[in-house]
């Protein structure tokens, strides 16, 4: 017994005397006297309204030589147009990075960091904030900068472009962190994907944002009478008042009332949803439905309910899932109630993959139990003690009190909201909590979301009934706008392609059984030029094997029906799914694929002809589900295929790029015109010049050539 071992050890070290009293020392912790708590001095902020309507709240605290100020502005992403999601956030970002019409953003960075100060601006869902923190002696400079940014942001194009670029990057990476996926997707379920409270940025909504939008958004929302400014720290209130008057005093108030807050509409979606995320080694389990605001009469009862259900170490969910079964790293629940809009009644766990479905069962059982019988008086008392005893921390720092009161004012809550809440908590009985829970937690109304790799779930998902999959694939960045097709456009499109196929001798394709093509390519990669040899074998219609001979080594890839493999340095292996997808796309759109399959494809002629290297071309847009934004340029006179434009992935980074491929030097093989030269451009930069060195038809190739080699 280890405990005995401990005691023996202590005794051995000559501390026996203290051990004798040790047992007595550690008596029942509940019997330790708790003296009454000293009074909490709640600071009463200085509050006044400037002539232009700006509300100022200040609390002085001289302990450290620092001053913090925050402006809270009535703006938010809930007000941005649906086709420009991201506008508010980019506006908040560029206000800071772009600087003002007086000082540009980069100069600001230098200036602030030299002062050890910071100024940050951002616009969230239902409010914008601008914060400064400076050493006391620099506060004057800090507040001048803040006022300048709020009143006269410069919004330079290059910083807008940078912010948009970063936002596009964020879109591309938005599925990396499973937690982020969960936080994004669940609100979409319960509020609806298009709700201002849940919608997300897309490449298209970011692309749609212009400088004029930012200027307009700022003009619409940034007015002194829609700002609450708090100042906290080491300063003289009279000096600060004068300074605020100097920097904000001549800012005229808004001429119109603020726009109404868009209503929250509940999607009323229930049922089971799955997000497949193959790289997760654990799972998230969530269930819930929309909830209440903090000013709801049931708010105190629901806080107690969630404290007991999922609030901490002694909560039901934590005990059942983590403590008893060791299944989860996290388990809990929350009312998520907001001051401005309803939150969600949410129950969740992060668990190991194989117990995903079982964990959901445990959560459901606990919810059912919590709605069948009242919690015990002991449990309720424990939860009350926890909430009430920790209340003192709400007032533990003057800065925290100031922030709290400013938030109440911003959202229209009474100053004594906390005290009222405290009294309500004190008087709640178990039955009242049960009643409130029955009103506010409705299992049949809940959406259930599982996220992870279902291959590793031990229990079959089917045991849950119908499961709808949520596709989180990130849509490709939009290409250029294609006009809506008329029947005439489609007819003309097919005509152009038919003429191209006729001119190319597509009718002779039947004479070709297989092809062996040798090409030599010169690739420009990061300023270097690499010579790459390509040996391609094609067995018509859809088997293809290619050996790439590069200075770094030889790479082989092959695809033929169900068989798809690659050989790299590690030897042969199945072709990874994403590589295969890219290969299949390129097979659809390459020259041979087009000639072979054009009859079953849909083409839209675009109204304007185009000039490609001095040749006039008709332009056709291919409507294809598998290949986005694909355009074909056909010589108007000779009907030769001149150029294709399509979305591809960068060879080096895999990032999406705009590819352009130019075909020339046609020579016939078995009566089919074949381009002997190709030039490839990525995002306008030359990538490769490829020439056919030999091409032979009908060598007697068989499917055997496409079998995966042994390890």
């Amino acid at each position, binding site marked *: 017994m280890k405990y005995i071992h401990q005691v023996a050890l202590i005794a051995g070290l000559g501390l026996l005397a203290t051990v004798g009293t040790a047992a007595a020392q550690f008596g029942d*912790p509940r019997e330790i006297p708790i003296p009454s708590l000293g009074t909490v001095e709640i600071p009463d902020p200085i509050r006044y309204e400037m002539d232009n309507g700006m509300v100022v709240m200040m609390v002085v605290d001289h302990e450290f030589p620092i001053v913090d100020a925050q402006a809270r502005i009535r703006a938010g992403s809930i007000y941005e147009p649906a086709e420009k999601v991201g506008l508010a956030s980019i506006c908040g970002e560029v206000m800071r990075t772009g600087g003002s019409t007086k000082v540009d953003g980069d100069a600001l960075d230098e200036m602030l960091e030299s002062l050890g100060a910071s100024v940050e601006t951002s616009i969230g869902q239902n409010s914008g904030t601008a914060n400064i923190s400076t050493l006391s002696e620099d506060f004057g400079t800090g507040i001048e900068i803040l006022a300048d940014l709020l009143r006269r942001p410069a919004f330079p194009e290059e910083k807008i472009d940078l912010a948009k670029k970063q936002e596009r990057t964020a879109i591309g990476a938005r599925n990396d962190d499973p937690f982020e996926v969960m936080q994004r997707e669940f609100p979409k379920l319960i509020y609806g994907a298009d709700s201002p409270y849940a919608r997300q940025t897309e490449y298209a909504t970011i692309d749609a944002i212009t400088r004029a939008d930012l200027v307009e958004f700022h003009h619409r929302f940034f007015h002194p009478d829609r700002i609450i400014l708090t100042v906290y720290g080491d300063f003289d209130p009279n000096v600060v008042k004068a300074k605020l008057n100097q920097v904000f005093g001549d800012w005229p108030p808004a001429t119109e009332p603020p726009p109404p807050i868009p209503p929250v509409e509940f999607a009323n979606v229930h049922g089971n949803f799955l997000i497949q995320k193959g790289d997760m080694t654990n799972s998230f389990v969530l269930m819930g439905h929309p909830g209440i605001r903090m000013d709801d009469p049931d708010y105190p009862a629901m806080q107690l309910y969630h404290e007991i259900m999922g609030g901490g170490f002694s909560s039901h969910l934590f005990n059942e899932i983590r403590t008893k079964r060791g299944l989860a790293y996290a388990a809990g629940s929350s009312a998520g109630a907001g001051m401005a809009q309803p939150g969600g009644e949410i129950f969740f766990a992060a668990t190991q993959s194989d117990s995903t479905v079982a964990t959901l069962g445990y959560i459901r059982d606990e919810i059912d139990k919590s709605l069948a019988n009242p919690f015990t008086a002991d449990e309720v008392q424990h939860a009350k003690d926890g909430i009430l005893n920790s209340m003192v921390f709400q007032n533990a720092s003057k800065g925290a009190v100031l922030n709290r009161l400013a938030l109440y004012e911003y959202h229209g809550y009474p100053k004594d909201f906390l005290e009222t809440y405290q009294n309500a908590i004190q008087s709640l009985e178990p039955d009242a909590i049960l009643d409130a829970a029955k009103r506010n937690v409705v299992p049949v109304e809940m959406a259930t979301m599982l996220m992870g790799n279902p291959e590793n779930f031990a229990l079959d998902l089917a045991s849950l009934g119908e499961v709808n999959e949520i596709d989180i694939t990130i849509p490709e960045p939009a290409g250029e706008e294609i006009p809506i097709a008329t029947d005439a456009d489609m007819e003309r499109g097919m005509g152009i392609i038919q003429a191209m196929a006729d001119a190319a001798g597509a009718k002779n394709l039947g004479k070709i059984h297989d092809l062996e093509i040798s090409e030599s390519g010169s690739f420009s990669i990061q300023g270097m030029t690499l010579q790459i040899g390509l040996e391609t074998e094609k067995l018509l219609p859809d088997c293809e094997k290619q050996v790439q001979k590069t200075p770094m080594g030889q790479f082989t890839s092959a695809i033929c029906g169900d068989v798809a493999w690659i050989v790299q340095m590690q030897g042969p292996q199945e072709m990874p799914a994403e590589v295969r997808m890219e290969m299949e796309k390129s097979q659809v759109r390459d020259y041979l694929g087009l000639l072979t399959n054009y009859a079953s494809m849909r083409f839209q002629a675009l109204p304007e002809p185009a000039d490609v290297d001095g040749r006039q071309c008709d332009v056709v847009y291919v409507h294809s589900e598998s290949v986005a934004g694909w355009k074909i340029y056909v010589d108007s006179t000779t009907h030769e295929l001149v150029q294709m434009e399509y979305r591809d992935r960068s060879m080096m980074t895999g990032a999406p790029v705009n590819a352009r491929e130019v075909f020339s030097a046609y020579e016939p093989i078995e009566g089919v015109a074949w381009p002997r030269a190709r030039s490839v451009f990525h995002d306008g930069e030359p990538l490769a010049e490829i020439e056919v060195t030999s091409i032979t038809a009908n060598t007697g190739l068989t499917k055997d050539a496409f079998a995966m080699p042994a390890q």
Partner: protein
Amino acid sequence: MKRILGFCAALLAGGAVVSSASASGFGELESEVKEFKLDNGLTFLVVERHEAPVFSFVTFVDAGGVDEVPGVTGIAHMFEHMAFKGTPTVGTDDYEKEAAAMKAVDDAWSAYADELDKGYKADALKLDELMAKFKESQEAAKEFVVSNEFSKLLEENGVQGLNASTGLDFTWYYYSLPSNRLELWARLEGDRMTNPVLREFYVERDVVIEERRFQESSPTGRLFDEVLLSAFLAHPYGTGVIGYTSDLKRITREDAWDFFDKYYVAPNMTVCVVGDVDAKEVEQLAQKYFSGVRTGKDPRRVRTIEPEHGSEIRLTREEDSQQIYAIGYHIPGSDDPNYQAYQLLGDVLASGRSSRLYTRLVKDDQLCSQIFGGVGFPGEKYPNLLVVAGFLNADANPDDVERVLRDEIEKLIRDGVTPEELDKVKTMNRAAFVRGLRSNQGLANQLAMYQGMHGDWKQLFEVTDQIDAVTAEEIQKVAAEVLRKENSVVGVIKKPSTAS
């Protein structure tokens, strides 16, 4: 209960790695620190702050992931979890019976593990049978457990920020309470540091394994795991804090006791209390409740010194996620007299929006959406890494990031830092330092760390002068010394290459 990596703590918490402040400004604060030592060697620091009726504390244990040995990785963190499980008087309704039941659990596990060790000769049926017995014994031990009583007690009493974290260098336990709960705190904290009971060990082990999976689910987590492993081939910094899954699956309660016996001795620990308390009363309560913490020898430290690699080490992960470029340069540990110069070097490169690399990579060349950097990865006690990491914009190429980085480093080594730049990073450090001491918990943590890791809390207030004394020439000198290709490790996440 989380783990900390020095790097992340320093960057994300802001000011966890404390730096400069004008020494004159802190004389008053310094004079308010009361220090006393119990007979067993346990050091206490107390600062009275009566602004609000609350206090915070930290128990600092100078032991972390770096003190683990192969095969038992993750034990420092595992023990930290166990310190929330209670004592003979908290967390059970019959300790005597529970102790016997826990012994049975250990025996059952040991029997199972013995069979498992036979490898392919292990008898599958017997394994099943032994596992069933092990589970049965756990059920039996559970009978006597009052689940999470320690945490529940604290929750009832209004605890805030109840947590602990284990890093490579050290472990700390902390929370805040209303100030009328001072004696309750002393009773609970003294008890668990004196008489911990490692109940529910094998259930908690699964929780920690789950935490490991959580980390593996993140591409960034996977990359930094491997950067560490590549940078520290010999030194235990390479292993990280969380432990290998295979080790975690096999660690035993006995392993946790061994770790406790060696490292949780009074001379290796510091307790710091800051808030609305009376220092005299803290001393009396410390005598009463902490005198039983075992004394012992300050344990030996890691001997291994990472040999020079003599070559850059590179690793590339192909992941369909945001691309990352990370580079680490080996630098000395925080006891090096020039350490502040390394720190300022890191700041010049990568701290703040006007730092050299932020300016180039994020603003000018627009290759990265965000960068992070600084010294102290993954810890500071021993020689560690000055790291710079960039999260790439969608169309950017890791090779271009590397080119810019080398370009900037070359310039820095050639031309040194400007006087304005030096002033700026010193001021930034001073401001971060002041902000870090504003909260009770922040001050407690800093004092305890300087006492526990550097042997004297007063050094906290000296670092300010040391930072102010660093010259541009010193920074240029250390830059030339460490920012060399053959002194670096590079980790990259790039998109899977597709066949063209």
